[in-house]
């Protein structure tokens, strides 16, 4: 055998240690060549009578993180090309063969007549876990880095190499479905407890334990290939099955709003597969897998949530040639909710933090926020007491700007007022000089004008966090007109340090995320004024894929803030910049009714003490009309919610605010939860087709107003069917 990816070593007892170690790659991945080698190995092992069994292990730090997703992203397009070249039927057969390749090879391992044991060190995810499920015995290393899981659903796929069949043959159906739905990995102890693996052993002993199992007479027959095998939850058509399946279908819809075909395919695979012998069950799984691989949801989610996010995290936008900055000590000025959050994530990442506020008490209060957050983690067992002590010791709360001395970067999160910000910049630069990069966490003020207060505007940049800082994964980096490469590189290095995802945008009112979110909330307001029932607005927004309804969201960010923004917008951009219906609604809510949102316990919702929030019953009277819900086109409401944000995103690209569609997409999903299954604001347009999107915009403009008018750029692109990724993509990949 000529093996590239494996080391094949047979010991004196005839037990082979098969060490998976792909040359030139940091991780083992599953690809076509690997399958060929595994096929050859199985042939060899089953024929060679001197071989007693095989221990499969990894020569790398991790076992295997799954299939090569870059390959999968293009599956839909590849298939379309094959259809053109060879016709539908032939292309589909070929595609099915590819989709089922891993499943078939794994099944050959399972039925080759010799026992296979997996000795797993490090993560075994996706196909990397599925190959071990086809082994007859699994030993996991008892260490912190070892985890097993099937995270395929997170990128719009599902475990298509036996995962949907073997998991529910190992665990009770409800547990199996939860494991498959969520895609979260399990630690060794949990995996053992839930019957997914047989043994957990110290890292150095896993291969020996696996060998011992083989030498001890380990059987080369999977439980489901035994004659009297019974699935853990019994037959589907049984009283138990009736308790499990109807709620499982309902909970699928509750959790996904039926927007995630891969999750639905898991249900179908398990339901249909559990009624079949395993070989046919695997065949059914392959059929659904081939269907899901070709789905636009899979293509969109792989691209945005895996590839693009990875590229941005690795510094796709970092200026080349800028040396890596050493960020050891960070200054955070303003210890309010945002500043305190920034201090926490920075200290959590291991850097020292100087947290400044106007007096010691205010600074201490900011630091107490970190104490509360880390204490909660300790209480949940996610951190140790020592971690807490170390983290808090890294934060120095102070009222003295001189303590900023030695900082490698300063982030200010003081009150949103030009004067206050200018003063802060001045005081900090008095201590640090002009060369330390100074960042503002403003969400409303133009960076260019704030930068003019700095001694060197090229060292001034915006780093816009989202609230709550410890939870939100996105950071918007805002380039002022004069912001230089060093500032950008420093800001990106900082974002990478705190393990968040950056997008780089040019200076404009609202930057990127808040512009889109503003449109979303406004659409909810306008629907309300049209007479759409409030519950319908909220529910349909979530059905469209948004995490929170627009009225809830407005209550969270505060309606009086919206009122101030409306005033400011009118002042800066003129009367026509604000929809009078929306303005009237907000005015009535804030000025007449004093309903400011969650903060004063009354907004679009009422917030009874200790009870569940409920839509304020006065809304209908306030609006004065309510449409008959049976006459409302729910599909169109969904389109309005997504299209109004997508067209705004298109405008930001047309205006040069956002320059890379990957950033628009990733930013929209991480920043404001834009329907992840679409791949983000720009993918939503691209997958619909620019032509179809412009037609949709024109239709919505005619019915609902100019906020849907597409920018000329988009209209031009639609003429030739050009996509954003076609026109603006293909930029430098990860640096």
């Amino acid at each position: 055998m000529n093996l590239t990816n494996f080391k094949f070593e047979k010991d004196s007892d005839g037990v082979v240690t098969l060490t998976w170690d792909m040359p030139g790659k940091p991780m083992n991945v599953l690809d076509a060549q690997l399958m060929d080698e595994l096929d050859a190995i199985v042939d060899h092992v089953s024929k060679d009578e001197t071989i007693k069994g095989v221990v499969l292990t990894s020569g790398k730090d991790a076992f295997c993180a799954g299939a090569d997703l870059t390959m999968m992203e293009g599956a839909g397009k590849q298939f379309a090309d094959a259809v053109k070249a060879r016709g539908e039927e032939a292309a589909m057969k070929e595609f099915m063969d590819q989709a089922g390749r891993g499943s078939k090879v794994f099944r050959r391992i399972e039925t080759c007549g010799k026992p296979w044991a997996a000795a797993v060190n490090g993560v075994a995810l996706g196909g990397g876990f599925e190959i071990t499920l086809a082994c007859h015995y699994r030993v996991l290393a008892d260490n912190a880095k070892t985890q097993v899981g099937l995270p395929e659903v997170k990128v719009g796929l599902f475990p298509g190499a036996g995962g949907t069949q073997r998991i529910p043959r190992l665990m009770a159906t409800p547990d199996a479905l939860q494991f498959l739905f969520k895609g979260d990995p399990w630690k060794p102890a949990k995996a053992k407890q839930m019957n997914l693996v047989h043994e957990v052993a110290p890292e150095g002993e896993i291969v020996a334990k696996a060998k011992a199992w083989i030498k001890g007479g380990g059987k080369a027959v999977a439980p489901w290939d035994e004659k009297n095998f019974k699935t853990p939850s019994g037959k589907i058509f049984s009283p138990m099955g009736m308790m499990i399946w109807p709620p499982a279908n309902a909970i699928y819809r509750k959790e996904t709003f039926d927007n995630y075909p891969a999750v639905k395919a898991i249900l179908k695979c398990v339901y249909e597969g559990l009624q079949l012998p395993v070989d046919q069950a695997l065949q059914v799984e392959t059929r659904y897998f081939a269907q899901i691989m070709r789905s636009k949801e899979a293509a969109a989610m792989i691209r945005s949530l895996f590839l693009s996010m990875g590229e941005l995290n690795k510094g796709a936008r970092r200026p080349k040639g800028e040396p890596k900055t050493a960020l050891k000590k960070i200054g955070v000025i303003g210890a309010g909710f945002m500043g305190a959050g920034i201090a926490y994530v920075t200290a959590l990442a291991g850097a020292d933090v100087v947290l400044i506020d106007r007096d010691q008490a205010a600074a201490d209060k900011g630091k107490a926020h970190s104490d509360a957050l880390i204490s909660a983690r300790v209480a949940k067992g996610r951190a140790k007491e020592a971690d807490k002590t170390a983290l808090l010791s890294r934060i120095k709360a102070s009222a003295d700007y001189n303590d900023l001395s030695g900082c490698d970067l300063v982030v200010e999160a003081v009150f949103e007022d030009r004067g206050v910000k200018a003063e802060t910049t001045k005081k900090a630069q008095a201590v640090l000089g002009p060369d330390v990069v100074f960042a503002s966490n403003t969400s409303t003020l133009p960076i260019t004008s704030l930068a003019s207060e700095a001694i060197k505007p090229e060292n001034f940049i915006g780093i816009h966090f989202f609230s709550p800082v410890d939870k939100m994964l996105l950071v918007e980096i805002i380039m002022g007109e004069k912001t230089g490469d060093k500032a950008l590189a420093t800001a990106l290095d900082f974002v990478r340090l705190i393990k968040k995802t950056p997008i780089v945008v040019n200076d404009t009112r609202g930057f990127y995320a808040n512009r889109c979110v503003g449109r979303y909330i406004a659409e909810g307001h306008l629907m309300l004024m049209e007479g759409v029932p409030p519950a319908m607005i909220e529910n349909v927004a979530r059905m469209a894929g948004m995490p929170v309804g627009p009225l809830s969201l407005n209550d969270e960010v505060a309606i009086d803030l919206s009122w101030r923004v409306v005033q400011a917008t009118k002042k800066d951009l003129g009367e026509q910049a604000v929809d009078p219906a929306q303005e009237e609604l907000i005015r009535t809510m804030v000025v007449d009714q004093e309903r400011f949102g969650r903060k004063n316990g009354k907004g679009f919702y009422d917030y009874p003490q200790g009870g569940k929030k409920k839509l304020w019953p006065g809304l209908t009277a306030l609006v004065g009309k309510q449409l008959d819900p049976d006459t409302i086109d729910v599909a169109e409401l969904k389109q309005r919610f997504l299209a109004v944000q997508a067209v705004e995103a298109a405008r930001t690209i047309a205006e040069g605010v956002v320059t890379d569609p990957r950033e628009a997409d990733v930013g929209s999903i991480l920043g404001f939860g834009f329907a992840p299954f679409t791949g983000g604001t720009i993918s939503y347009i691209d997958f619909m087709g620019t032509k179809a999107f412009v037609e949709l915009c024109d239709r919505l403009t005619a019915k609902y107003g100019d906020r849907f008018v597409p920018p000329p750029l988009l209209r031009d692109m639609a003429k030739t069917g050009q996509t954003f990724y076609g026109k603006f993509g293909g930029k430098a990949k990860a640096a």
Partner: protein
Amino acid sequence: MPDAFIYDAVRTPRGRGKEDGSLHEVSTLQLAAGSLRALKERNRLDTKLIDDVILGCVDTVGESGSDIARAAALAAGLGDQVPGVQINRFCASGLDAVNFASAQVMSGQHEMTIGGGVESMSRVGMGSEGGAWPVDPSIAIPAYFMPQGVSADLIATKYGFSRDDVDAYAVESQKRAAQAWKEGRFSKTVVPVRDVNGVTILDHDEHMRPDANMQSLASLKPSFTMMGEQGGFDAVAIQRYPEVEAINHVHHAGNSSGIVDGAAAVLIGSAEAGKKSGLKPRAKIRAFCNIGSEPAIMLTGPVDVTKKLLAKAGMSIGDIDLFEVNEAFASVVLRFLQAFDVDPAKVNPCGGAIAMGHPLGATGAMLVSTALDELERTGKQTALVTLCIGAGMGTATIIERV
């Protein structure tokens, strides 16, 4: 096209559908055979004239499986030559059996047929048959499957019926049923269930709670809250009807149809067949039809099918003297009343399934007999019988006295 006439109708009393119910000891076979035998005996039927027996039955597993209609026909002594077929359209099966039996006559292919139904809910549990609709993701998800109780609560929520509204309806149903029994309005039709020695096992509907009142019902906890909240079905309901903020769970055992055992049979025939048998027709099957309605809210089919049937028959709602609308849940009937704005006194005047129970496969045929008896008692002419159905359907039949 020949007319189909109703020559007679019988039903068993309804036994509480639990292990302590009086009919629990009686098998599905004996329940069904008893009704068939009663039809034969009291009409002195020449069973050679009977061309088919069609029985509705919903959960057809175990003792009720394998075409219970043929088994019951044989057990009732109708003779080897009388075939039988079991049908299932969930809660309307019994009415569909009457309609199918009528259709055979109207088509001219059969002369005399029996339509009816049977369900021993105490012996064969509800839902024990399984089925794709609630279980298979390929249909449960696109059809927004939810248990009927949640759908009934959704109707109440969407159409604005409060807990007091549904409870008041239930109290009225109990009152009317008690009154009807007191006056002997069911005596023409109800045939007691007897043992092998002829000893009576049950001669009255034993599910009734004539003393139910608003206070006693108020103490009952909603039955479908947990299922709705923890089983995810409230979310399913809301995604189908997003104008609803939260499902108002108003139904409970006291304002939903009772789980009972029972059987019924209706003798249908052409004018010719009646003459041959020396029987006088009691009513004519004027028209009937079926419809599929929105499956998530599921139980609004009576409204849709009634509209369809009236249009088909060239009638208006005002032409109907009496309505039997199955009381699967109080909100189903309240929605019917709301949609047609009919006088509540004309709808279910003898009470309904909330008081007397709903033996799934048999109820439709029972409602035909109740309507017929009541038309005769009051001297009225025309009645419409309708039931809501699982998975979103409706069946309705108009009968008129001759």
